[in-house]
């Protein structure tokens, strides 16, 4: 305990290291205005000058020559929330990316980063993509909404396409989403016909408008053809956990469900359904390996057409901010092949429903529809505005369950 001097030196060393790191970081003038998400209202110029001087003295590492590396091909970046091998949500977006490559060949260059957590990491990945020369960025998860808008504010020359969000704070941000509820209406129609126990199971992920809207659409169209139908909903609080999804399917089967819809990505429920002789629907990807049964049809996410069109517009300079919410008619939502396990007359009526939705003749939410507590939501013949529909957070009348929270 006597020797104090080394400790003093030691503390000095730590302080030196810390100061060195900070100074070195501050030494580089951010090129293309790349300060992280915070504004500059807390800037301290004196410190910065000192820091730069210290750093310059420490090491001559200031390599601050801004380089504007302009690649010849149009550079499109994709930020994915899951792995491209998930065979679900992210996989479908990557199919879209590949379609872009196919459509434009050498004229485009696409890159992607997978499994990017929402929040700070997303913002960094987008910025790095731009520093690497990206001209256009697709951010494919709702949770990237604020990050996308933050980055867009700093890079007005880059265009952003954000999936499933609603904020377009800057003219270079567009949002897009798919009217999956149209597909779910068709699935519900088939399910209502196919169930013999009159119990339809539903594996739900998180209690958010997208999922709730899907449940409502499916229920309304199942009840339309089968007034006795009852929905049993299991929330698994995950988008992807094959074992839990399988357990949920088993629980639903054991509760008497003979048709199960899923709003989670894995194929695990299919195996359970196959064993139980029940029916299910592919989700995100087609899950054709389970056809003709238990997979009797599928709801497909098809981003390719939209991606190819928007990239084309951006290349030609005709890209404009938009809020796209496309469904079956534009091909953004697809219905997988209906198998022979479905009786021909049901297939015919499902196709008729599909066609009427595709042509715009019929809206899956057409009044009269009451909310769960019996209040009138839509009067006869009325269809909802997109705004309230997008934020739907109630069950329609007839669903005997409560939304968690």
């Amino acid at each position: 305990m006597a020797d104090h001097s080394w400790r003093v030196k030691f503390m000095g060393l730590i302080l030196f290291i810390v100061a060195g790191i900070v100074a070195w970081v501050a030494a580089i003038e951010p090129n293309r205005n790349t300060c992280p998400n915070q504004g500059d209202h807390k800037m301290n110029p004196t410190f910065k000058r000192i820091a730069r001087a210290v750093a310059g003295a420490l090491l001559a590492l200031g390599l601050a020559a801004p380089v504007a590396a302009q690649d010849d091909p149009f550079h499109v970046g994709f930020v994915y929330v899951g792995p491209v091998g998930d065979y679900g949500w992210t996989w479908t977006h990557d199919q879209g990316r590949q379609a872009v490559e196919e459509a434009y060949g050498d004229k485009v260059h696409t890159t992607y980063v997978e499994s990017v957590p929402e929040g700070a990491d997303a913002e960094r990945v987008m910025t790095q993509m731009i520093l690497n020369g990206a001209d256009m960025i697709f951010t494919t998860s709702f949770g990237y909404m604020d990050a996308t808008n933050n980055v867009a504010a700093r890079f007005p020359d880059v265009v952003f396409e954000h999936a499933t969000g609603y904020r377009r704070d800057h003219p270079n941000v567009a949002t897009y989403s798919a009217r999956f509820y149209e597909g779910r209406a068709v699935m519900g129609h088939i399910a209502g016909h196919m169930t013999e126990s009159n119990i339809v199971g539903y594996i739900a992920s998180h209690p958010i408008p997208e999922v709730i809207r899907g449940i409502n659409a499916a229920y309304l169209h199942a009840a339309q053809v089968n007034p006795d139908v009852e929905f049993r909903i299991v929330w698994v609080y995950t988008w992807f956990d094959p074992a839990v999804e399988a357990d949920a399917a088993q629980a639903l089967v054991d509760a008497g469900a003979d048709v199960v819809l899923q709003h989670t990505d894995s194929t695990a429920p299919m195996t359970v359904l196959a064993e139980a002789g029940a029916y299910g629907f592919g989700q995100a990807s087609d899950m054709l390996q389970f056809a003709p049964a238990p997979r009797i049809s599928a709801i497909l996410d098809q981003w390719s057409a939209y991606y190819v069109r928007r990239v084309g517009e951006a290349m030609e300079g005709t890209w404009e901010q938009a809020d796209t919410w496309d469904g079956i008619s534009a091909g953004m939502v697809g219905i997988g092949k209906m198998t022979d396990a479905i009786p021909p007359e049901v297939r015919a009526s499902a196709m008729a429903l599909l066609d009427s939705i595709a042509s715009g003749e019929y809206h899956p939410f057409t009044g009269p529809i009451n909310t769960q507590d019996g209040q009138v939501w839509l009067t006869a013949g009325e269809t909802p505005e997109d705004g309230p529909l997008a934020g739907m957070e109630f069950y329609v009348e007839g669903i005997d369950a409560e939304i968690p929270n």
Partner: protein
Amino acid sequence: MIDPVTLIVALIGASTPILLAAIGELVVEKSGVLNLGVEGMMIIGAICGFMTAVNIGFSWSGFVAGAAGGAILSVVFAFLTQFLLSNQVATGLALTLFGLGLAALLGEAYSGISPPLTPDLFPQTLQEGSAISSIIFGHDPVIYLSLGLVAAVWYVLQHTRAGLILRAVGENHDAAHALGYRVVRIRCLAIIFGGACAGLGGAYLSLVRVPSWTEGMTAGAGWIALAIVVFASWRPWRALLGAYLFGGIAALQLRLQASDITVPVVLLDMSPYIVTIVVLVLMSSNRVRATLNAPAALGKVFHASG
């Protein structure tokens, strides 16, 4: 309402991957080694088993390959911790990172394929007799194997010389070394056994439970297995109890959601974890002395200085 028979059948299936991994890790920890790489070994087992079963077309080959895959990955851990004396906690976590990455690379071409089926051990006629017979006979061979493993581990640890030596190594490696036991060799064998069990659990996941391959499909099962070992206070039968309790609550909460009983879903969702904690608290406060029987040398580095 909830049918207890289907619940029990479901919970046994749901618990088996965790049970397999836990019983392996239990042996590892009994030898005084803490391997936090269970998740990584499980997922390597899942992909190795899946690839093999798909290519050979025979599910049994998949289970063997899964166990082998887990064992091979555990050799990396054994080498680092036993010969290069690296820190076990950090090496285990690194093993998980490495395993998750490697499995995803290996499995790139295997998404969206169905593996060959694993038939039940007993014929259908035997299963359909009554509720009891469907609980007893209605499973695939790996489930019986997992129960056999629990019994075997219990027997070996409690009633054989080999078990005694293993426990001695885990309690006090210096004393065991002084008695002439090969501490490093015994621990390596235990680690490899643990890796094989975790790999088998992973293969069960990809070949029976799910069954298909997707990146990251273990989704935290390895961590639950680690918790189960602690829950069991390093006793094999209690590991069985813990795994079935956890799997049972998980299966039950989904059934409660699917039934017409209304219980807040959020509470149900966190119930397996809370119930496990509460049960452990109850058990540990009743028997004050007995519960903290963690192997004394757990996680400590052994180096024969002699």
